[in-house]
C-alpha cells in the first residue's frame, strides 16, 4: 500500500502525461497501430490516434475530393455541352469557370484540413472546424445568383 500523497502525485503526473488522448477501446486490436514508444512519458506528446479515426479522416478527405471532381465536371459540362445563352456569349464561361476553380480549391483545402485534423487527433486536442461547407455554400449560392442573372439578361435581349 502506498501512502495517499504518493498515490495522488502519481495519478496527477499520469493525467498530465496523456491529455485527452483518444484512447478508443480495441485500439490495441487494430493492426498497424502500435502505440508510439515513449509517448506516455512526455507531457503533450504526440500519439498516433486509433487507426479507425485516421481512416475516417481519410474517407472524409476522399469524399471532399469526389465533391471537387463533381464541381469540375459540372463546370466543364456547362461550358462545353450547354448551347450558348442567346445574347450572352460569356454566360457559359461565367458560370462554368468559377465551378472548376472552386473544385480545385476544394481539393487543396481538403488536403490541408486532413492534415490539420490528423495533427489535432495526434495531439489529443479538439478537431478544428472545417471551412469547406462555408466555401461550398457561398460559391454555389454565388453561381446560382449568377445563373439567374445570365438567364435574365438573356431573356431581356
Amino acid at each position, binding site marked *: 500500500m502506498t501512502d495517499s500523497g504518493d498515490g495522488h502525485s502519481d495519478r496527477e503526473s499520469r493525467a498530465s502525461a496523456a491529455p485527452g488522448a483518444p484512447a478508443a477501446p*480495441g485500439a490495441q486490436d487494430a493492426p498497424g497501430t502500435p502505440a508510439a514508444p515513449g509517448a506516455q512519458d512526455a507531457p503533450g506528446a504526440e500519439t498516433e490516434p486509433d487507426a*479507425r479515426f485516421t481512416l475516417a479522416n*481519410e474517407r472524409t478527405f476522399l469524399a471532399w475530393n469526389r465533391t471537387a471532381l463533381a464541381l469540375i465536371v459540372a463546370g466543364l459540362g456547362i461550358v462545353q455541352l450547354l448551347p450558348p445563352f442567346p445574347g450572352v456569349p460569356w454566360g457559359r464561361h461565367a458560370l462554368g469557370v468559377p465551378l*472548376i476553380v472552386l473544385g480545385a480549391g476544394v481539393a487543396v483545402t481538403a488536403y490541408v484540413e486532413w492534415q490539420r485534423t490528423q495533427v489535432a487527433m495526434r495531439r489529443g486536442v479538439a478537431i478544428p472546424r472545417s471551412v469547406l461547407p462555408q466555401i461550398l455554400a457561398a460559391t454555389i449560392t454565388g453561381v446560382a445568383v449568377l445563373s439567374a442573372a445570365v438567364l435574365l439578361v438573356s431573356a431581356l435581349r
Partner: protein
Amino acid sequence: MALPDDPEDADPGLARERTRLAWARTSIAFAAVGAAMLRKELIPGLIVLAATPLVYAAGRFASHTPRGRPRPRRLLVVTVTVTLVAALAVVAAFLGHGPTSLRQLLHV
C-alpha cells in the same frame, strides 16, 4: 462476454473496408470524369483516364509507416490529380471549344 457497443470494437477491419471502398469510389469518379471529357477533349480525357489506376493504386498502397504514422503522399496524389483535372478543364473551357467561343469571349 457482452457484445461491445460499437461492432468495430470487435472488428476494426470494417473501417478499413469502408476506406478501401471510398478509394474505389474515388477512382471510379476519375474514370467517369475522364470518359466524359473524352467526348470533347481527347488528350485531357486520356490524361484523366490514366490517373484512374494511379488513384486506385494509391489507395492500395500501405497507409501507414511501421510506426503507425500515416503517409500523406498517397493523399497528395488525389489532391494533385484533382487540381490537374481542374487545370485541364479550364484550358479546355477556353481553348477546347474551337476558336468561336474564345472569339465570342473576347468580343464582349
